[in-house]
């Protein structure tokens, strides 16, 4: 269970990215965050594992205060929280295998891992993770030799190496075409069914309706909606997305996927 309480983030340049945001993520949920670009979705997700330090507010992970965690404790907390990125964030020149193994660094022997030495168990785990996303045969390719969809699958395999209890996915399909988007989200859905909590930001509403178990919406850093996907009616939609609504596929109301 993840609890976010009164979270506020003010960037050094004065931008208020999050304003007093509070919500909960229950174990086993597929919670989707929606909102226009610039509404604070990435900031919110990065505050949860403290890639960004929040200005005010608390985050509790199973009653442990993430915001007050010492550096060493923070590493242990992060180990349980997988993360998937819009730009995949792979080391392009490294092999797929190395990229996946790097997801295990939080568990590995620090000194051996610096020398690139991995236990056979970890290597096997990496191959299994690649197998789960259907690209075990690419283990020895360079990461940048893969297509966008394949790179995001490597990103998911890397997160799986952490044996995470929750996965944060920051617009994981925004760089992919619609067909690939479904394939990637289906992997996340599969993980969710196996018990991993998913907190995912998405842009397109049709995807929200298809995958989310619950939705929250941000607008200019404020939490403006919390509820079930079906509760996002035309009015709510206009409220969240404003005049730019047309671009975010209002079509999904006329012909739901």
């Amino acid at each position, binding site marked *: 269970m993840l609890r976010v309480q009164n979270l506020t983030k003010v960037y050094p340049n004065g931008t208020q990215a999050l304003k007093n945001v509070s919500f909960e993520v229950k174990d086993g949920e597929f919670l989707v965050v929606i909102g226009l670009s610039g509404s604070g979705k990435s900031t919110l997700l990065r505050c949860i594992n403290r*890639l960004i330090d929040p200005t005010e507010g608390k985050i509790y992970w199973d009653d442990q205060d993430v915001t007050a965690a010492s550096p060493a404790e923070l590493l242990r907390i992060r180990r349980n929280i997988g*993360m998937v*990125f819009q730009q995949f964030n792979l*080391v392009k*020149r490294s092999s797929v295998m190395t990229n996946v193994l*790097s*997801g*295990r660094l939080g568990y590995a022997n*620090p000194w051996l891992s610096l020398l690139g030495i991995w236990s056979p168990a970890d290597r096997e785990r990496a191959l299994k993770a690649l197998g789960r996303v259907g690209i075990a045969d690419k283990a020895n390719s360079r990461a940048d030799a893969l297509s966008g969809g394949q790179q995001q699958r490597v990103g998911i395999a890397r997160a799986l190496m952490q044996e995470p209890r929750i996965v944060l996915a920051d617009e994981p399909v925004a760089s992919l075409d619609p067909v690939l988007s479904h394939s990637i989200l289906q992997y996340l859905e599969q993980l969710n069914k196996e018990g991993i909590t998913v907190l995912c930001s998405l842009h397109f509403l049709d995807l929200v309706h298809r995958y989310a178990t619950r939705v929250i919406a941000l607008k200019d850093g404020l939490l403006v909606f919390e509820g079930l996907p079906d509760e996002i009616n035309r009015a709510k939609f206009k409220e969240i997305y404003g005049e730019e609504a047309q671009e975010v596929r209002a079509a999904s109301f006329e012909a739901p996927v």
Partner: protein
Amino acid sequence: MKNRPPVWRIVLTTILIAVGVAILGFSTRVSQIDFIRLFRDAPKAKALVTSFLTPDLTTRDLQTTTIEMPFPIPCGSAPNGTPIKSGPRLSTSVPCAAAKDSFTLEGFNLAPNAQIAIRWNIPKKGKLTLPYVTTDASGHFSAQLDAKQIAVTVDGTSSSIQVDSLVPVGNLKVSQSVKDVLEAMFVTIFMALLSTTVATIIAIPLSFLAASNITRRGAVGTTAYYITRSFFNIIRSYDPLVMATVFAFWLGFGPFPGTLALTVVTTASLGKMFSEAVENIDPGPIEALQATGSNRLQTVVYSVVPQIVPDFVSYIIYHWDINVRISTVIGFVGGGGIGYYLSTQINSMIGYHKAGTAIWAIVAVVWAMDFLSAEVRKRLA
């Protein structure tokens, strides 16, 4: 411009052209351009180029066959030599002669087309070697000799004429100058290697200081950033040769100041290139690795290092490559190595073939380094 009357424009254009021509004329004078000399001295250039094109590469062992024949000066001071009728032999137009007389010396059935050394073998005084002659295809030579005063008979023992035919035998061997050139080349290559290595070691930490995405935080960081950056830019504006002159002024000529100068310039140049590589890092993977719970060092090794190493290696090899060339030139002005060897041979006026050897060695090494560095950089891309 548009509104000026056409007359003005013509006058202005004329003045501009006149100034241009004047500047060109002046430039020609100060650089002492002399096309006539270019043609007049062409034979000199031709001799030079010919020597360069026939480098001194190989040598062979010489086998010496000696024939000796007594030749009393003056006649009767000692017994004449017994004439031989067949086989390799010498014969003189007179069996003996008075001092200062001239006579002809002939040799028969010697080695064909061989170099012949003719010597007076003078009792108690040693040998006097005359200019070399060459045998014809049938092994015959003939030479005009003087009965020298110095070769007169002493105590009843006459001087003798000694003829050594020198025949190359055995396989071709590399010549001494090839060995010298190789040795000098190694000095140059290692000068470049040493300066590049030391420069790399200094440049790596400095480059992180000069990378805006790493250092430019807070007052201290920003100051460090600007100081390192200015240091790089100031040093880089000096040519290595100028730097070498500065160090030579301090430490005298030799490989040491040359290597030092090269190190300083390479540090600045590598530092600048490294810092740009660091600035171009994709921050995404760093963020991703932090998110997995890896510690700082693990994050750097797994996300920063793979991104910069290929660039760093390719810059290092590139600098080693150009440093071999630069240290050749530095050597030329006294810095040791192949450049120094080359300048010595050219200045000696007789070492042009050896200079040719050096030039070919430089061409070979520069080509090889060029190829190697291009190849490695291609692999790393």
